[in-house]
């Protein structure tokens, strides 16, 4: 099928590009780990304190590192004119963006999910809590990519947009953070995390349906 072929080529391209810059993928991961480790350094590492802040810190670090990598989503394609060409691909832009966002999640979100258990161990979480942590990240990180794509599309082409991106996107990330970290904290405290998790799942569904569309609208506006 022609459509499938095109989308597949796009996915291949984005992942390939990320792999060429392995350093990028590695770096996202490292940022995640370093940011998590900064806290005990800044705060002091009394075990009871560590236990209490663990889920929150891991989630905040995931948020920040996902946000940092957003810049890559469109800006390099924009700088070299590839994005113009993508707009001219005979296919709905929404679909194209959905693929790009998916590719972004694979290279910037999935690695976080995979690494999270190790960080959980560092904060002395139990196996069940780590399970919930991973689950919450699996549901939450795609949502971060989806929301982030809208922001990245809005600031396209603005020099030094990185910080503006942060202030546009971080407030929108907050619900994800609250329920993501909330689920894990609940689990750590022996409360059922189901409510929070199903709320994230619901948000994810909404995000998958609406975010690529909103990003497409934003992108067309920015590229006028």
């Amino acid at each position: 099928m022609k459509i499938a072929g095109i989308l597949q080529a796009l996915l291949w391209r984005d992942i390939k590009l990320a792999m060429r810059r392995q350093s990028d993928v590695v770096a996202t991961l490292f940022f995640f780990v370093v940011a998590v480790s900064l806290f005990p350094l800044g705060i002091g590492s009394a075990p009871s304190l560590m236990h209490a802040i663990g889920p929150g810190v891991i989630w905040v670090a995931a948020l920040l590192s996902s946000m940092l990598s957003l810049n890559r989503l469109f800006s390099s394609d924009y700088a070299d004119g590839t994005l113009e060409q993508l707009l001219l691909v005979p296919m709905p832009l929404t679909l194209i963006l959905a693929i790009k966002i998916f590719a972004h999640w694979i290279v910037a979100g999935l690695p976080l999910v995979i690494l999270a258990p190790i960080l959980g161990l560092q904060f002395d979480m139990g196996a069940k809590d780590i399970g919930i942590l991973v689950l919450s990240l699996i549901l939450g990180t795609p949502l971060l990519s989806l929301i982030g794509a809208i922001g990245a599309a809005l600031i396209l082409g603005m020099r030094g947009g990185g910080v503006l991106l942060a202030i546009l996107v971080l407030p929108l990330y907050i619900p994800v953070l609250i329920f993501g970290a909330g689920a894990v904290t609940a689990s750590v405290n022996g409360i059922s995390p189901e409510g929070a998790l199903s709320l994230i799942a619901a948000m994810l569904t909404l995000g998958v349906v609406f975010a690529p569309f909103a990003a497409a609208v934003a992108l067309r506006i920015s590229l006028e």
Partner: protein
Amino acid sequence: MLKVRALECRRGASLLMSDFNMSLEAGQLIHLQGANGTGKTSLLRIISGLSTQETGKVLWNDVDIRTAREDYSSNLIYIGHQPAIKDDLTVLENLTVSLKLNGVKVDIKRLEEALEVVGLARRKNLPARVLSQGQRRRLSLARLWLDQRPLWILDEPFNALDVQANKLLEERLDQHLVSSGMCILTSHHTPNIDKKLLTEVSLGL
């Protein structure tokens, strides 16, 4: 057939053109002329559907391009100022991807022939990052040898090309027109093409 009707183009507060009309038929090449900053690039971007005008219409086979965006896109090759090349992919990969994204079946033999033609065969496995300015433009033009579409929109395609590449592109343009393609391009010197096929359009108030 491409028609532009009563187009008005504003950038910021300045009016670049108003009531601009133009039509382009099979086998015809329009050479857009005009001093720096008269709005050639802006016009090409509107015609290719990348930006939208406030008043006026662009019609492809008598249908507004905004209502039939995808159909129009699949008839069009646009090559802008920017070469649209990913620095991190190799020359060959760049070409492959740009074809695949446009739904063209990729035949590796033909690809290599095209690279031979534009003089990049020896560099096909180098990352595009190392190419010189002119080589980048050659790479972005290579698509013209591989993808059959009726309408070409080229923004200063001769920029940075050396004499030999210049001739090559002119020959390709000739071929395209003879096989009843259409083309609209900007350039600060008149391309050396059969005068019967060439229409000059001047911009500038």
